[in-house]
């Protein structure tokens, strides 16, 4: 447990110029301790304040000096007391000397830990470094700082400094700030120190690493170019989601009096036979099944292991390619980082040479990776150079996993140019959009980029730990609103919006949001054609599209033939075919009946021809045949023989078996039908 124990001293500047940011400092430091209470509860934390009114530290009493430095809490195993102390930091009255504080902190760490827990002694300095440090008794400030930094390295201490600048610092003497920056830089060079300048409260929140995770290599071995050229590398995860803590299910079944109740809920999984729901199948009697079509194929783990894909461990280069051949959105997973093996200068040089050459030529490398022995799959990914401009940080590569052919879904989307003119922005609108984009700039020239992921904390986690601490004191507390500072992550910065109100207003005016709905009944079809075109399937015949676009529900008087054709081709329900046929029959009856001296005959026959065709297509020949027979009988009864005669001249006959398989009518019968009816009419 205590193997990874860390001792951390927080060196906080509470001088007057820091007062405006102290609320943020309080929040971030208390969160750091809250997280330690959960994940590293054996870590020790101490608090040293400087710029205070009072003076309270061991060095003052021992040797004098070191004024306005207060040891608020001596290093101790994290507890609620430290959290509370951090939540109410006293406001100081003096300009703080950060070097004094650093020396006090070093002294504390050496006294308490000596040479133990090497590398786990950490000092975290938060200041705006606006006040000058005192001149040393002998030598220059630079020499003094160098000596201290060397001491620090010798004792295995690490220091990180978070310095407020920009909006977070008030007008201060630039000379002093520059001098302090120089001094802090010495620390950064001499010790393994992170030196961060933050300009806004969010970055302050994100700059302090609130949880320490010792990275573990994903792979350690050769980056193989060819059997003859191998570079020793170590691969680590560069990003890894810090998950929302997993909470356990709570059971209140235990009696109130039971002090040792765990309140846990155990989850039990049982596999039961589908035939006999009371029969529990033990794990060794279960076998995995994989779907193959409608069937499920059982494959035992042993069988599987014998035949499955077993690639050899190793990282191999496939080649280099232009960086434009890999698109940013094709990255699949968390990123990795490739670093040359520690202490291996030659490998470091090789990585450095390749990374620099790749950056110059705008190239990336494609790798095939099998990280572990026994891994069941390979990973294809892209290696991009990460050239460091600091002399104590090595060059390295980033690596991102790329998709396989099976992982890419080739969905088609309409081109923007396919949309009507009302969807196309005009020149003025484009200009307004460009202005809008330029004004809402989060990384303006010469200023620090805002919302840099490296300095942007997860607001949900911050809120959770805050609430957790709150609930430990007040169990019934409601969820507090999202912190004001953190809200700037989730909403646009009000300052930025206010400054550019004019541009935003003009942007809003340029785009009429009312507009006409985009959705038209034809959209579905167009999409379908697009999809099909891709798969080399011929689109349905043009007439079919026309029909389906208008959904005809009844046959009207003006265009009965078209209506009928549209209706009978509707495919949204099988009922339309019969409905169309019946409607058409009625229509024809009406026409023949209402005909005055045969003026409707031509139209009726037109409809009849359409009906005949429809019945053949839909394989409903008997519908037509029976109707035609019925119609002729009807005509004879009603003394409308003239229609039958007219029919005969137009050669409309029954549907024979040769035209539709389901027909009961022979060719002979069909041909003779019209002839047959004539004599009757005489």
């Amino acid at each position, binding site marked *: 447990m205590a193997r990874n124990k860390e001792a951390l001293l927080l060196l906080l500047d509470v001088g007057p110029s820091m007062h405006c940011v102290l609320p943020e400092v309080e929040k971030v430091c208390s969160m750091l301790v809250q997280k330690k209470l*959960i994940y590293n509860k054996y870590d020790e934390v101490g608090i040293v304040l400087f710029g205070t009114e009072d003076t309270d530290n061991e060095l003052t009493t021992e040797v004098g000096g070191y004024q306005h430095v207060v040891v608020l809490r001596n290093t101790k195993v994290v507890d609620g007391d430290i959290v509370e102390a951090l939540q109410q930091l006293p406001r100081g009255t003096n300009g703080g000397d950060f070097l004094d504080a650093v020396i006090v902190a070093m002294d504390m760490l050496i006294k308490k830990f000596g040479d133990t827990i090497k590398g786990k002694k950490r000092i975290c300095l938060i200041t705006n470094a606006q006040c000058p440090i005192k001149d040393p008794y002998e030598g220059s400030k630079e020499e003094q700082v160098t000596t201290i930094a060397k001491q620090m390295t010798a004792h295995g201490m690490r220091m990180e400094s978070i310095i407020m600048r920009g909006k977070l610092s008030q007008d201060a003497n630039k000379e002093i700030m520059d001098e302090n920056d120089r001094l802090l830089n010495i620390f950064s060079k001499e010790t393994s120190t*992170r030196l961060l300048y933050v300009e806004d409260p969010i970055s302050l929140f*994100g700059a302090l690493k609130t*949880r320490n995770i010792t990275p573990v290599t994903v792979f350690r071995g050769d980056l193989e170019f*060819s059997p003859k*050229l191998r570079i020793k590398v170590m691969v680590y*995860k560069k990003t890894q*989601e810090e998950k929302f803590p997993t909470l356990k299910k709570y059971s209140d*079944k235990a009696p109130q009096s039971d002090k040792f109740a765990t309140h846990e809920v155990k*989850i039990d999984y*049982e596999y039961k036979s589908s*035939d006999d729901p009371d029969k529990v199948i033990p794990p060794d009697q*279960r076998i995995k*099944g994989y779907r193959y*079509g409608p069937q499920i194929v059982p*494959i035992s783990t042993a069988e599987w292991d014998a035949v*499955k894909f077993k*690639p050899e461990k190793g990282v191999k280069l*496939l*080649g280099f*390619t232009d960086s434009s*051949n890999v*698109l*940013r*959105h094709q*990255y699949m997973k968390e990123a990795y980082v490739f*670093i040359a093996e*520690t202490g291996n200068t030659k490998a470091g040089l*090789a990585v450095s040479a390749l990374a620099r050459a790749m950056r*110059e*030529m705008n190239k990336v490398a494609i790798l095939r990776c099998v990280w572990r022995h026994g891994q*069941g*799959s390979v990973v294809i990914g892209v290696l991009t150079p*990460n050239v460091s401009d600091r002399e*104590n940080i*090595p060059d390295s590569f980033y690596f*991102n996993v790329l*998709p396989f052919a*099976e*992982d*890419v879904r*080739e*969905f088609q989307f309409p081109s923007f140019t396919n*949309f009507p003119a*009302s969807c196309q922005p005009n020149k003025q*609108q484009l200009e307004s959009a*460009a202005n809008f*984009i330029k004004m*809402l700039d989060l990384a303006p020239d010469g200023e620090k980029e805002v919302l840099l992921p490296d300095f942007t904390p997860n607001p949900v986690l911050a*809120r959770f730990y805050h609430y957790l601490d709150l609930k430990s004191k007040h169990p019934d507390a409601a969820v507090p609103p999202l912190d004001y500072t953190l809200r700037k992550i*989730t*909403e646009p910065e009000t300052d930025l*919006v206010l400054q550019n109100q004019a541009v935003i207003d003009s*942007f809003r005016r340029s785009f009429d*949001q009312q*507009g006409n709905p*985009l959705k038209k009944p034809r959209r579905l079809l167009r999409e379908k054609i697009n*999809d099909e075109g891709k798969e080399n399937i011929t689109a*349905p015949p043009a007439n079919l599209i026309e029909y389906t676009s208008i959904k005809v529900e009844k046959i009207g008087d003006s265009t009965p033939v078209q209506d009928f054709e549209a209706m009978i081709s509707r495919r949204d329900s*099988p009922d339309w075919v019969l409905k169309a046929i019946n409607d058409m029959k009625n229509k024809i009856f009406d026409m023949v009946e209402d005909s005055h001296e045969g003026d409707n005959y031509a139209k009726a026959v037109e409809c009849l021809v359409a009906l005949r065709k429809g019945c053949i297509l839909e394989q409903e020949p008997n519908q037509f045949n029976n109707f035609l027979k019925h119609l002729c009988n009807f005509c004879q009864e009603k003394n409308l023989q003239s229609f039958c005669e007219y029919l005969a001249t137009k050669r409309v006959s029954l549907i024979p078996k040769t035209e539709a398989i389901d027909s009961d009518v022979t060719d002979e019968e069909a041909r003779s039908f019209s002839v047959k009816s004539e004599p009757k009419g005489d």
Partner: protein
Amino acid sequence: MEDDPDYDIFRDEDEDPDAQLHTENDSNKEYVVYLVDASPKMFTTTCLSENQDPETHFQIALSCISLSLKAQIINKSYDQVSICFFNTREKKNLQDLNGVYAFHLPEGDYLDRPTARLIKEFDNLQDSFSKNIGSHHGVLPGSRENPLYNAIWVAQALLRKGSAKTVNKRILLFTNEDDPFGCLKGAIKSDMTRTTLQRAKDAQDLGITIELLPLSSPDEMFDLSKFYVDLIGLEGDDLVSFMALAGNRLEDMKDQLRKRMFTKRRVKKFKFTIVDGLSIELNSYALIRPTVPGSITWLDSITNRPLKSERTFICADTGALVEESTRRFHPYKNQNIVFSVKELSEIKRVATGHLHLLGFKPLSCLRDYYNMKPSTFLYPSDEGTDGSMCTFIALHKSMIQLNRFAVAFSGSSSRPQLVALIAQDEVIQSGGQIEPPGMHMIYLPYSDDIRLVEERYSDTSGVPKASADQIKKATDLIKRLDLKDFSVFQFTNPALQRHYAVLEALALEEDEIPEIKDETLPDEEGLARPGVVRVLEEFKTSIYGENYDEESEQGTGKPTEASKKRKAHSEFAKKECESYDWGELADSGKLKDLTMVELKYYLTGHNLPVSGKKEAIVSRILTHMGK
């Protein structure tokens, strides 16, 4: 391969549960009838197959269908297929027409989903074909039989089920007879031609696509103009390119990648707030997601019947069965802090709305390590207006022109986070859309998610940086090892293809599992080319110097504290290990009386894994000693 079916970190967030249901069931299904000419000509004409064995056209058609079915059962297993032969001696079809034989399983429908059994029976069909089905001359002078006409009719009847709107219906016609009515003359010929064409047209009018896969022999090209040009309705340029394409299509059918097909569907619909009072309705789509071998069903190993899993909650204190609790707790400062599920979801609700624009940054600000999971594609929803479409297009165009990406906050309920929106222009290559137009949403990490690895390996005494000459040598190397037309689509996943191959072999009870080519291996031949070897050598020399011996490099690196400790520990263990008489202990069965620490001496001393319970360790030792 993930063993746990419930665990899928890549599952899309907040998916529409309805959308999920319809993925593979209904939409975009395909019903296909394979119509295979079985006339004697199909058996007499041969061409050389890939391994130079003569193969009849009939065999080619059959193997092509078989391979196609095997791909289909994995890719789109909800499709339905039917295989019909025409010009056959026997007849078997719904309409009882002559010369058409519809092949199907006794338990299945004529048109049915492909099953392992169907594929197997179909593979066996070739041997029994002449006995059970038999070949027959189709159209003969003096006969009024027209098997081609009948075949189209049968196919059309089979394809009657399913609405043409949701189902793609296709007839794939395999034949090598370019003039089916060639032996006829005069009126009979024109009559048969006419009725057959009419038949085909009627089928097409019903929304059925007829595709022709002509088989030509080297000495006799398939002449489309004789008959089929009218049947499939080709015109102009299409006609010219058809034959060339037809050959490819046959190859494509054989080489179909086993790849599960997904129907285009949105993951989620949401509102993208640009500024107050201005928003765009967007749909999100998952264009890139890792494909997994498919879900696992637990079976009873005796009956092979699927099992039902049941989950029960038990109170750890009282052992009572409890309902799923709505309260959770987390230990903190020696107490259990209890939360309600509602409170927890309230904590996660940090933003109003779905996607809120925060600003823009130059593309160079998007570092390579800002990545957490596969991106999501955004396209304006058709439920919006032309006004919102216009806004989207304007922003899209301007972002591309200005080389900027948008930063937005995505307030999803599972993980609210910052996202980068990259505008992607449409890319069309040889008629196909390679990249659709729209925006890609990339999920950005928080500072909590980023590890400071490089800084950990900073060295106050400076780190190696390459010289100009070394960089030059690296440049030469990169130029030599260039993959010119690299595209992420080019590699298939060897593990997944192997999985499908194993599954197929087991389902079809084949003896051998076909070898899958691992396309991801480096091009060894290319690497052995003298030019490549030379630049590799030069680069190596510039870094490592002449006469570099790899082994000597090892260990020159400063050993870390931990590695020193490990080394000391293993040396100690080796020494300790010698003080036991392991053989004796094993024979007398006293191994189990030793402590774990003692047992581990043996394991460490012999470089064996030290993990596991005592039982496992003892058995590992015994195995190692060969007992």
